[in-house]
């Protein structure tokens, strides 16, 4: 019988939650790396027992941990992230040039086909690759050396490369998103990159339709329809039907189109989930009601999903990497909150229940469907 494993990164460690295919009763293991900030951990699609995890602390910096037994035991691997060449500068908050400095890994993306190959999205924004199971990390420098990079400015959370999406139909295609530079695509395995922000409109930058400078919060894609992307921008939920070349807004009837997390149903490429957040200055759900909104039409028409979720006095946030779906026949949807709850739905969002309630603030949620 299939099993589901939920990987949760939190402000003070990682947790591994497991259940059978019914997804009603859960075992909780952790904290792993207690006290470390775990921005992200993710399993290899090519070998589900291989999990990469990115704990960091302000004292000791970045460490990469690897498990080869599904999260039971871990081994530290490489932690050296060095920009290639002379890294140069990007813009600082005050508009002055600021040297590129490695701070932490925000996102780990294992290869779809090779357990030893894995990508890391880091702050200050760059993409690194390891081809030896995380022991050695090499930058793919042409993103950071893009013509526009000198003008990239950090978002409130830093100049972070927080999203990496690999295309199952095209092994050379990689999408990334950077706050607050925008979305970029490589069609040659990271050798060259182009900004893919046409159609985005951001009123907080001098030219609202500029080629770069947009605060993209997250991008997701159905593996069944790789050319179709969905984006939660700082404000606006967007859609592209041409691999990011052009975007259009699909916020529709959402109560607010600010938010961080966005994901697509595992089997229905037009079914999309977001968690609307009140605003950029008030990072909690509108009216204290925690609601996931689902569109079954690829955007524009959204329905609130509330059964099992707190509908009063709820003032948590759901961060960009804190939503995921499983691939069970009836798609499961999961998200974690800054209040330490991880909610799961085993019926594509119709009903919800917390798996755990009192973890440290949840930074990321990933799901593996096993067997």
């Amino acid at each position, binding site marked *: 019988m299939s099993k589901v494993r939920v990987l949760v990164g939190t402000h003070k460690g990682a947790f591994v939650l497991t259940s059978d295919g019914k997804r009603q009763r859960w075992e909780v293991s952790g904290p792993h*790396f*207690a*006290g*470390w900030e775990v921005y992200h951990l993710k399993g290899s699609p090519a070998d589900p027992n291989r999990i990469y995890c990115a704990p960091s*602390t*302000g*004292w*000791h*910096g*970045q*460490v990469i941990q690897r498990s080869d037994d599904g999260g039971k035991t871990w081994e*530290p691997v490489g*932690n*050296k992230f*060095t920009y290639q060449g002379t890294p140069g500068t990007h813009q600082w908050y005050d508009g002055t040039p600021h040297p590129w400095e490695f701070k932490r890994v925000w996102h780990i993306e294992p290869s779809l086909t090779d357990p030893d190959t894995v990508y890391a999205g880091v702050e200050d924004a760059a993409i690194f690759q390891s081809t030896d199971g995380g022991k050695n990390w090499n930058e793919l420098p042409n993103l950071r050396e893009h013509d526009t990079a000198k003008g990239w400015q950090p978002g409130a959370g830093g100049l972070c490369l927080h999203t990496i999406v690999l295309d199952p139909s095209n092994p050379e295609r990689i999408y990334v998103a950077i706050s607050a530079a925008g979305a970029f695509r490589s069609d040659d395995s990271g050798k060259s990159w182009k900004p893919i922000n046409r159609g985005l409109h951001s009123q907080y930058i001098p030219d609202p339709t500029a080629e770069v400078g947009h605060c993209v919060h997250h991008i997701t894609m159905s593996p069944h329809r790789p050319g179709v992307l969905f984006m939660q921008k700082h404000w606006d939920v967007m859609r592209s039907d041409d691999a990011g070349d052009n975007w259009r807004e699909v916020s529709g009837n959402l109560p607010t189109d600010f938010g961080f997390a966005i994901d697509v149903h595992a089997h229905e490429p037009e079914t999309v989930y977001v968690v609307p957040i009140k605003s950029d200055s008030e990072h909690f759900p509108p009216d204290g009601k925690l609601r996931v909104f689902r569109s079954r039409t690829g955007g524009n028409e959204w329905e609130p999903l509330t059964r099992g979720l707190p509908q009063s006095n709820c003032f948590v946030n759901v961060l960009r990497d804190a939503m995921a779906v499983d691939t069970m026949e009836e798609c499961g949807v999961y998200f974690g909150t800054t209040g330490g709850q991880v909610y799961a739905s085993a019926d594509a969002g119709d009903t919800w229940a917390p798996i755990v309630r009192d973890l440290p603030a949840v930074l990321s949620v990933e799901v593996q469907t096993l067997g």
Partner: protein
Amino acid sequence: MTAIVTIRVVLPAHLRNLARVGAEVTLEVAAPATIASTLDALESHYPVLRGTIRDHDTLQRRPFIRYFACQEDLSHQDPNKPLPDAVLTASEPFIVLGAIAGG
């Protein structure tokens, strides 16, 4: 022949867990042992600690790390200066400490 001294090193909790060691480790370091040579020996025995106390390349102390010994803060002294006598005779440990930060 180079003289060898035994240095006791106390690590903060996160690094003990990372290196899978107890509260204190002992290292054999060529005399005259310094902060730099002691950390070289520590990282040689426990490569997983590379980059967690000082920068991989510049070997500069990480900003929130401190070095204490004999009730003194050695963090800002020349890392190539010999450690205090009490540390060189192993009657006092060399302490790597996470600064109070972050709440």
